[in-house]
C-alpha cells in the first residue's frame, strides 16, 4: 500500500529563486578574489615533501662508485616483483675490486612498481632510494622498464655516511696475515 506524502507549498521567497541565486553568486565572487589552490601543471611544479616515495632510483656514493652490490634483496622483497637484477663481478683490476660485486643490469618495471619503498628499506647498502620523481611516461611498455643506466641518471649521488667498503679496503691493507 503506497503511502502518500503531501508536498509542502513553497514560500514567496522560494518562488522567486532570488535567495539561491544570490547565495551562488556570493560563492563565485568569493573565489574570484581568494588565492588559487590548483597548480598549472606541468608549467608549475608542486613542492615535494621530505620522505616522499616517488620513483625508486639507484644512487652513487660521493666517489662516483655505484653503491648497489646486486645482493638481490630488493628483488626478493618487492611485493609486485617489479625488479630484475643480473648480478656481476667487478673485475679484479678495477679500483673498486674490493667491493666484489655490482649489477650487470638492474631493471625496474615502473608499470608494476607500487611505490611501497620496501626496496629502500631492505637495501643493506643504501643504494636504492625512492626520490621525488612521481611522473613516469612513455609510448611503449619496454620504455617503462628502466634499466641500470636510467636508474642511475634519475638517482644521482647521495652522501655516504658509512664508507663501509672503504673500511674493508683499509683493513685489507692493514691486515693480510697468512
Amino acid at each position, binding site marked *: 500500500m503506497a503511502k502518500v506524502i503531501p508536498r509542502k507549498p513553497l514560500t514567496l521567497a522560494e518562488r522567486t529563486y532570488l535567495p539561491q541565486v544570490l547565495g551562488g553568486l556570493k560563492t563565485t565572487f568569493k573565489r574570484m578574489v581568494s588565492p588559487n589552490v590548483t597548480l598549472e601543471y606541468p608549467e608549475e611544479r608542486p613542492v615535494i615533501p621530505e620522505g616522499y616515495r616517488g620513483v625508486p632510483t639507484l644512487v652513487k656514493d660521493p666517489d662516483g662508485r655505484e653503491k648497489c*652490490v*646486486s*645482493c*638481490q*634483496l630488493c*628483488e*626478493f622483497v*618487492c611485493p*609486485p*616483483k*617489479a*625488479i*630484475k637484477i643480473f*648480478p*656481476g*663481478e667487478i673485475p679484479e683490476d678495477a679500483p673498486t675490486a674490493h*667491493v*666484489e*660485486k655490482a649489477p650487470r643490469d638492474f*631493471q625496474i*618495471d615502473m*608499470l*608494476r612498481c607500487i611505490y611501497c619503498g620496501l626496496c629502500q628499506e631492505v637495501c*643493506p*647498502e643504501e643504494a636504492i632510494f625512492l626520490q621525488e620523481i612521481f611522473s613516469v611516461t612513455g609510448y611503449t*611498455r*619496454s620504455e617503462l*622498464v628502466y634499466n641500470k643506466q636510467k636508474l642511475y641518471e634519475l638517482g644521482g649521488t647521495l652522501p655516504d655516511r658509512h664508507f*663501509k667498503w672503504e673500511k*674493508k679496503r683499509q*683493513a*685489507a691493507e*692493514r*691486515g*693480510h*696475515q*697468512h
Partner: protein
Amino acid sequence: MPTLTIDGVAYPAEPQKNLLQVSLSHGLDLPYFCWHPALGSVGACRQCAVRQYRDENDSRGQIVMACMVPATPGTRIAIEDEEARLFRKSVIEWLMTNHPHDCPVCDEGGECHLQDMTVMTGHCTRRHRFPKRTFTNQYLGPFINHEMNRCIQCYRCVRFYRDYAGGRDLDAFASRNHVYFGRSEDGALENEFSGNLIEVCPTGVFTDRTLKNHYTRKWDLQSAPSICPHCSLGCNTLVGARYGGVRRVLNRYHHHINGYFLCDRGRFAYEFANLPIRLRHPVLPRPAAAKDGAGRPPTAAEAIAAIRTRLRRSRGLIGIGSPRASLESNYALRRLVGPDRYFSGLPQGESRLIAVALDILRDSPARSPSLREIAEADAVLVLGEDLTQTAPRMALAVRQSILQAPAARVAALNFPGWMAHAFQNAVQDDRGPLFIASVDATRLDDAATAVLHAPPADLARFGFAVAHAIDPEAPPVPDLDPETADLANRAAEALLAADRPLVLSGTSLHHEALLGAAANCGWALCRRGRPAGLGLVVPEANTFGAGLLGGRPLREAYELVESHQADTAVILENDLYRRSHGTDVDRFFDRLETTIVLDAVQTATTARADILLPAAPASESQGTFISQEGRAQRFFPVLPPTDPVAESWRWLGHLHPDEARALRSQEAMLIAIAAEFPFLAGAREAAPSATFRLNGAAVPRSSRRFSGRTAIHAHLSVHEPKPPEDSEAPLTFSMEGTTTAPPAALVTHYWAPGWNSVQALNKFQDEVGGPNRGGDPGIRLIEPRNVPRAYHNAIPPAFNSREGLCTLVPLHHSFGSEELSRLAPAIAKRTPPAAFSLSPADARERGLGEGDTLSIRIYGRPVRLPVRIHPQLPRGCVGFPAGWPDLAGIHLPTEGHFE
C-alpha cells in the same frame, strides 16, 4: 623400549648415534657447525651445547657438546636450557667478531648455514669494537672461489678434503685467530672432489666459481631432480636454472649412490648446455628451406614434414642409437627403424665388451654393488680400471672402504665410530686391503695395500690368477711370473678373509679378458661362500640401458650402406667420429642419401647431417638412464626446452607415421618398452608417474620465494604469462604446488623453515645420514641370481713388447675423456693437453724427453703428439688420452708403430 629424554620428552635411545644426530633426526633444531654426518664428530665448534643431567634427581647438570655424547638409554638433556642457550648464542657472537658483514656480496647469502645458525641462536648485536682479522685469498682454480675472511674455523673443509677424499694440497695453517685454510701456494685444487667444499663449508669461504658467471640466489633458482649424464654411476643431482640457462649443479642425496658428495666433473660440467654450440633450431637441406624465405629457421612441423617425405622416398632406413641418450630415445629409434635395422652406435669391440659385461652381471651370483656397498666393503680388488678417471665417485667410495677393516678391529675398544679423532687415534695407519691392478699409476694408489702396474693382458692374467687362488677350480694361469703369483695369492687371501669382499673392473681398457678375470674372481668368492660384490664400470650414462635394448654393432651399419641396402640413417645423439675411424665414417656419410642427426650440441657428425634436429640435453629433458649398478633412474627437465628443441624420444615419436598416439608420452614409451622387454619393466617405477599428486598438487620446481616472476617478461607484455605446462612429470614450472616434502625422486629443493642451506637435507631423511624419507629413488634391474656359471677361461698370453711396436693403452682423464663435460669451459681449463705417455725405459730407448714430439703410426696414419713420461707405465705400452678429439675413433686393442 629404552628411552632418553630431551627437554622432558622421551625418545627411543640409539646408543650407536650421538645426541646431536638424534635431536636433528627428531626434527629438533640444534645448531652445529663442525659436525657432518659423513665426517663424524670432533666437538670443535662448541655450537651444539646442551645441558645434560645425571638422572631425574639431578637439577644442576652440566653443559656438554651434543655431538660428542652417545644417545644411550637414560640420557637426560635439555636443549632449551637457559644457560645452554646463552652458551650457544655467545659461540656465534665470538665467531661473528671476525666474520665480515658482507652477506650482500657473498655467494652463500640466502643458503648459508652460518646465517641460519645465527638466526637460530638469536645473536643480533655486535659488542666487539675492534677490527676484524683479514686474510689474503688464493686462486684455487676454475671451480672454487676462496674468500678466507669468512672462515669460522670449523675444520670441515680439511676434514673432508684430506681425511675423506684423500687430497693433499689443502691444509690448515697457522694458529689461534689466524688459522688459514688453503694451499701452500696459489693453484688449482688437485683433488677430483674439491667441488664438495662448496657444500661442506658452512659459510662462504669456498663457493662455486662457475656460478659467478651467471650468479643467481638460491631462492631464484628453478630446480629439478636430475641424473648426472657424465659417467655411468648415475649420481643424483639437483640442477638449478634461471633465465633459460643452467646455473649450477648440487648434490641430491641418495643413500645408496652418491650420498653427500659428487665429483667435480659431475658438478661443473653443466655449462656445456649454455654454450653457443648448442643446437637450437632444425636444419633442413637448402631446397626445402629456401621457399620459407631467408632468415627464418625451419619450425618443428616443417622439419618433421621434410623428414617424413625423405622417409617415404627412402630405399632402406637404419637407426644408430647412443649410450649417452636415454632409454626412451633409444627405444623410440629402435621402434622407428625396426629391431633388425637398429644399431647400438658402438664399434664392434666395445659393443661386445658391453654385451659381455651385461652377461656377467645379469646372471651372476655376485651382487652388482651400489656405491654405498663399495664404501662398506672390507676388501677390494680393482682390476684394470683407473676409477678416479673413469668413474670418480666410485674411487671416493673405494677410499672409504679401506677404513672398514680397521673399524672392525677397533670395535673392541668400545667407542662409536663417529668419534672422528678417537677413531683416527685408534686406527693410526692401519688400512684395510685394497689391491689395485692398473696400467699406469692411479690416484688411488696411495690408499692401496699393493699395486700392480702392467700391460692389460698381464692385468687380466693377474685377475685369473687371483680367481684360481680363491677357488682352485677356476682355470689356472700358465707361466705366471712368481712375483705376480705371490701378489695374486695375497689378494686372494685378503678377499677370502673379508666379510664383504668386492671386485671392481670395467671396460675402459677395452680388454675383454679383464672382465672375464673379474667375473671369475667374483664367482670364485661366491663359490667359496663369500657374499662377494662384482662391479663393472662402463663408459657412459646409459651404456647399460642402450646395451639392454640390443642393437647391432656399428660396423654392420656401414656394411649395410656399402651394399646399398640402406640409404637413409637416423643418428641419435652420437658422434660417429668418436666411435670409428674418420675415413670409415666419411665413407659412410658419402654413401648415404639422407643423414638425419639428432643431437644437443654441434659435433663432427652434426656437420655431416642433411637434416638436423635439435635434441634437449639431460638438463632439459625427461628420461631414464640405467647405471652401471643396473639401477634405472629418472631425470626431469629443469627448464622446458625452448621450442623447437625437444627430447629425442619426442622427435622420434613424431616421426612414426602410423603410431601417432602410441609413443607420444614418456609414460607410453615406458609401457611399450616394458611390453617388449619384460626385463626393463621396472624402469616405469623409477619415479612417480605424471599423474602423481601430493595433497592434490604437483611438486613446484621454483622456490616459494621465487622472485621476478612478473618482471622477467615485463618488457614484452603486461600479462604475466602462463607458466609452461609439464604433461610428462608430476612437477610444475612455477612456484605453485605442494608444500609437503615430496618423495626423494621428485625433490627439487632442500629447504625447511629456518634451514636455508643445503643442511636442510636433515629434514628430508628418515634419520640424519640415513635413507631419504619414503625410500631412495631408482629401481635396481640387476639382482644377483644363484645360477651356476662356468668360469671364463680365455686367459691371454703374457705381454711381450716387440721392437718398433707399442701397445696403445687408453689413459682416461676425469676432466677431458667424457664427450659432453669436456665442452664446459671450467672443465676445459683443467683438461691437460693431448700427449703420448711413455715409460721411462721406452723414452730412453728412443732418446725422448718430456715435451719432445713423438710420432706414432696408427692405422697407417702418423699421429704426432708431445711426450709425457709416466714413471709407472710398463715398458712397451704407450698411453694415449682417451676421448680427446685428436685421437678419436681408435679401435682397441691396437698397436702403433714408432716412427
